[in-house]
């Protein structure tokens, strides 16, 4: 890369610090000692990608291997992209500044369906052939992982390898296999065939999909003797699993600029809309001693002023008070905040809470998800109105005057009465405040209710359900606005058109590959950003290619339909998901895992079973 030209470009773009690398704890290796180069890509801007824990873990795990150099790549903002295209500067990795097409592997972590076009655009900018079938012997292997990889079919045309489940052991095994294959002089195809036999790896080109006349899938047929189903990988023992001693510490401000310490994986709750609640099962906890040691190392090496304890539901960590006691012994003197996202404050020791600054500081957020008890039972969100109100009261008496409530709209079986319930519950929180004799004086209350459109996801009990159309959602939004009468309630929602596109790709199949290819050609990118999202353009593409988007998201699927992801095994069985779907329609709840095992099947993945 011409340094002078590169600097001239950087002087003309916003936030050039996104493109320079060189951060503390970033890893530079001598190319002479390296035989495998891995470009770890996050298909969004630097500030978002650098906040992502999974990328930090895998970056560290791969770089811990001799001979493997993992580097970071982010999507350039459009001002930088324009300059790069104008000056023929290919997309490069931050550490070596080498172009993407020089790497052995290009890995993308797929967090969100609306980042699919960024994957294509980044490959294009990096000088990499978009279609996997056109890549030659010297071309990189494109590999994806993350939550969207569980149904990777819309991306199947563009990826060589899909990593299913937790990657810190699996990716290292893949590196070893690659090194062996290279030494043995295997061809690209021969290597991929071997990958298909490696646990946790799905190689789409070895699976043929055939369709029925009604467009549903006839069969997914394994070719060349590859396994008929592919099971996700998990880490058995989180205490001994790789965890970074240090994070790459960005110079520029990123979204979550703090130490993040994982405390457990999986979730006991079984909320029926939540994909994370199923795909990350079974629950596995780290011990307080390991967490404490790892968190301390991250803070020492990064100089952070805040450490966040990360999991899907912090309150469900069984030894939380013991852990906090251990951590406070050093965070207090070093003036480091502990932040506890997704904490249920009602059953938490008050004395401990008062020692945790950030809990006091940040306002209270609560996710009832649905407005009525009936609908909360349908989605198995086991929170009662009384709990919401009691928690709000606790928060108000502690001096808080702002409460955030999260809801979803368009949930299965939802009626207008349930929609009104969102307004009623919000109102009850407002009333709770004014009924308190000891409420904070001289202040009004603000209840911010945020409503997102429900998107049915694969590997949930609602994977067979139709998604509300844009028109239905808009109608419900209108009704909700009319039901809210208090000015103490502020309503906000996600764009229904965005939810619609997300829903199409979430349960899409391979035939959507040509839609993505066309979208990239027509300039779609950063679809999760309001300033770039162009719904009309997307609908025009579907129409021009004669693909009906409603087939993918607005249709009820039968239990016996072959789903595009039927050959993927996440541990949780389809039989369990069907049972949960039936119970949802009956309005019956399922107790959480520690109350009673519901027999989801995930315990088969772990030698010692569930925790």
């Amino acid at each position, binding site marked *: 890369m011409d340094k002078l030209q590169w600097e001239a470009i950087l002087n003309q773009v916003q936030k050039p*610090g996104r493109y320079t690398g060189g951060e503390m704890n970033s890893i530079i290796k001598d190319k002479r000692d390296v035989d495998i180069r891995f470009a770890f890509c996050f298909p969004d801007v630097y500030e978002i990608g650098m906040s992502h824990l999974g990328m930090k873990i895998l970056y560290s795990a791969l770089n811990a291997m001799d001979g493997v150099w993992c580097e970071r790549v982010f999507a350039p903002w459009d001002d930088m992209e324009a300059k790069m295209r104008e000056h023929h500067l290919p997309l490069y990795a931050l550490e070596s500044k080498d172009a993407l097409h020089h790497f052995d592997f290009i890995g993308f972590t797929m967090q969100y369906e609306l980042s699919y076009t960024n994957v294509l655009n980044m490959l294009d900018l990096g000088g990499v052939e978009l279609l996997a079938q056109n890549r030659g012997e010297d071309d990189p292997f494109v590999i994806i992982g993350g939550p969207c990889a569980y149904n990777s079919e819309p991306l199947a045309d563009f990826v060589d390898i899909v990593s299913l489940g937790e990657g810190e052991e699996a990716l290292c095994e893949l590196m070893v296999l690659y090194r062996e294959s290279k030494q043995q002089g295997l061809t690209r195809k021969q290597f991929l065939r071997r990958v298909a036999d490696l646990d946790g790896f799905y190689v789409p080109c070895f699976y043929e999909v055939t369709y029925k006349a009604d467009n549903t899938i006839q069969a997914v047929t394994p070719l060349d003797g590859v396994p008929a189903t592919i099971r996700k990988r998990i880490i058995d023992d989180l205490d001994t699993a790789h965890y970074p001693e240090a994070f790459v510490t960005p110079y520029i401000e990123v979204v979550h600029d703090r130490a993040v310490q994982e405390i457990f994986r999986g979730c006991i709750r079984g909320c029926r809309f939540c994909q994370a609640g199923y795909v990350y099962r079974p629950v596995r906890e780290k011990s307080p001693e390991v967490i404490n040691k790892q968190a301390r190392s991250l803070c020492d090496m990064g*100089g952070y002023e805040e450490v966040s304890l990360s999991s899907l539901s912090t309150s469900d960590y069984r030894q939380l008070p013991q852990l906090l006691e251990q951590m406070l012994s050093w965070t207090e003197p070093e003036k480091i905040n502990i932040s506890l996202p997704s904490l249920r404050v009602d059953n938490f020791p008050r004395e401990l809470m008062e020692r945790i600054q950030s809990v006091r500081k940040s306002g209270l957020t609560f996710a009832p998800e649905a407005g009525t008890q009936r609908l909360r039972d349908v989605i198995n969100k086991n929170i009662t109105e009384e709990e919401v109100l009691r928690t709000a009261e606790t928060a108000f008496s502690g001096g808080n005057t702002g409460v955030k409530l999260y809801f979803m709209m368009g949930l299965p079986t939802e009626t207008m009465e349930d929609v009104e319930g969102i307004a009623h519950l919000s109102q009850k929180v407002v009333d709770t405040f004014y009924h308190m004799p000891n409420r904070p004086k001289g202040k009004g209350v603000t209840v911010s209710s945020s409503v997102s459109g429900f998107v049915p996801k694969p590997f949930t009990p609602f994977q067979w359900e139709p998604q509300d159309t844009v028109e239905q959602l808009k109608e419900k939004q209108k009704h909700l606005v009319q039901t809210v009468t208090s000015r103490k309630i502020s309503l906000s929602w996600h764009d229904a058109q965005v939810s619609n596109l997300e829903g199409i790709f979430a349960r899409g199949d391979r035939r959507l590959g040509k839609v993505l290819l066309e979208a990239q050609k027509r300039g779609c990118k950063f679809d999760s950003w309001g300033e770039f999202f162009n719904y009309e353009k997307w609908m025009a593409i579907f129409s021009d290619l004669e693909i009906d988007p409603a087939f993918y998201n607005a249709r009820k699927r039968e239990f016996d339909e072959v789903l595009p992801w039927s050959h993927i095994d996440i541990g949780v069985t389809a039989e369990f998901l069907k049972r949960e779907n039936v119970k949802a329609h009956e309005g019956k709840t399922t107790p959480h895992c520690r109350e009673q095992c519901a027999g989801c099947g995930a315990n088969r993945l772990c030698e010692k079973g569930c925790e």
Partner: protein
Amino acid sequence: MDFIDVRMWFVKQGDLKYISHLDLQRFMQRALKRSGLPLWHTEGFNPHPYVTFALPLSLGQESRCESVDFRLTKPMSMHAIKSAMDKVMPQDMRVLSVAPPVQKAKMIAFAEYSICFPKWAWQQNAVADFLGQSEILVTKRTKKGGESTVDLAAALQEVSVAVREEDLVLSLRLPAGSSVNLNPSLLVGTIHEKVGQSPYGAQITRMAVFDINGELFS
């Protein structure tokens, strides 16, 4: 609470010139935390290590004379402080020296800059002629959002226009500090406008900072 003031001098160069002043502040607080030095924290609801910079540097400019002040809760030798900071500062922001502050930041009056126009040596005479004018009027945006006109010719001191291989290199002093401050990018913009556009823009480096008597700020 008692504290000891320390002034650390460091460079800011290479890719780190793309780190904004605000980001540099956060970085410095973290570097100080990582150093293990007995830092004095600000008091109040959200305590953080106290840091203050003498003269902010614009995004994209390099420097060989940046300084930051911080405070320790107990006395230490300057040598020990420097070695602690050496371990946590990156190469492109390496520590030059550590000393007790002598002057207050508001004593700063001038800064010396080196401005390199890569592969533009052939414009030496044109640029020298331009800078030799008796008046160079430029419009400057004021903090309040308005515009004012300044005469760069009157503000410029100790100007030299030299050639280094294919590059054109200017050396000059401009008023700097809290009362009057002229950003060298103003001059670069005017040269690009009036003399011509250089092929690779300009690389600006702050070389030294002076007080009103022309002595080095210390």
